[in-house]
């Protein structure tokens, strides 16, 4: 039944929109559509972003892996390499620090009335992705595949049952969040 649902194109567009509405609503209610809160995280004075992301990761991680054990969902890890994930990630970080928003929160910020994003961040993002598409053939040949490791997950890499990774990760994140709360942030 889920397979048929996954293949009905029109319904999928509607589901995408609906999930987006909920996502945008949550981002705005969390305050992460605001420059002040995101830049506060990057300046290490406000930990709202980290609290939201890590609690989303813990909730998502447990649920997705349980659903996977029940045979109801499949994982889709992205492939990676040093040249792509690390180098691209650092470039992203520089833009993140300059702009003070990331791609999803940028869209939410426009919905909240931020004109610097509507006229600056969004067109910039469109130019940046366009430039990447232009230089993709060269980048792919020279750098994107350097240190390629593929679509691997940590349980596959360590050759252990997934719960040997999930349980320590959940405990680690919980301890970190508890420490952040205790230190007054």
């Amino acid at each position, binding site marked *: 039944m*889920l397979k048929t649902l*996954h293949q009905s194109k029109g319904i999928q*567009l*509607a589901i*995408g929109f609906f999930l*987006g*509405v909920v996502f*945008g609503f*949550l*981002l705005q*209610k*969390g305050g992460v*559509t605001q420059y002040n809160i995101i*830049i506060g995280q*990057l300046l290490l004075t406000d930990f709202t972003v980290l609290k*939201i*992301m890590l609690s*989303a990761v813990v*909730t*998502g*991680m447990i*649920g997705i892996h349980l659903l996977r054990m029940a045979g*109801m*969902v499949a994982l889709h*890890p992205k*492939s*990676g390499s040093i040249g*792509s994930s*690390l*180098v*691209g990630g*650092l*470039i*992203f*970080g520089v*833009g*993140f*620090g*300059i702009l*003070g928003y*990331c*791609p*999803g929160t940028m869209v939410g*910020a*426009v*919905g*909240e009335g931020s004109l*610097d994003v509507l006229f*600056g961040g969004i*067109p*910039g993002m469109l*130019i940046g992705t366009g*430039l*990447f*598409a*232009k230089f993709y053939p060269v980048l792919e040949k020279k750098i*994107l595949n350097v240190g390629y*490791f593929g679509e*691997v*997950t940590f349980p596959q890499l360590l050759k252990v049952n997934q719960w040997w990774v999930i349980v320590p990760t959940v405990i680690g994140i919980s301890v970190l969040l508890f420490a952040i709360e205790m230190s007054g942030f």
Partner: protein
Amino acid sequence: MEWLFVKQWSPYVVGIGIGVLSWFAFLLSDKPIGVSTAFSRTSGMIEKLFRGKITTEKAYYKKFPPTIDWEWMLMVGILAGAFLSAEFSDSFRIAWVPTKWGSTFGDSPALRWIVSLAGGIIIGMGARWAGGCTSGHGISGTLQLAVSSWLAAAAFFAGGIITAIFLFQVL
């Protein structure tokens, strides 16, 4: 229903909400939540208006065709959802310069605009370079325990923290 109209929710409520949302994205659509590919497709759609076929023949747009898909609709939904949430709590405000930016770098909309545009270009390139953003890698990828996503997410924040501290405390 009063909770729908308050200004801000606990970050943990929001985080758990996003986590549950990710279950539904996998269940109903067999897809991880992500945003940056939609920007790439939009960029391709705009370029196609001006340059036609040359655009769709680019290797990158063969991989990610410039068309409206699930993730593109998700992006439109984010816009609508954030607007609804802001309206509900009366926090919709037209603003050119965020207050924290203004108190350090001044209230000039032109300066903030130039910097936002530059930041947007860099983050756009970086997102496609890394193959995802704070949503696709930072949340959806890390929760799947993907090695690529943990590495990218660490790099996002390392780069972001260094850049922000440099901007605010050195310049």
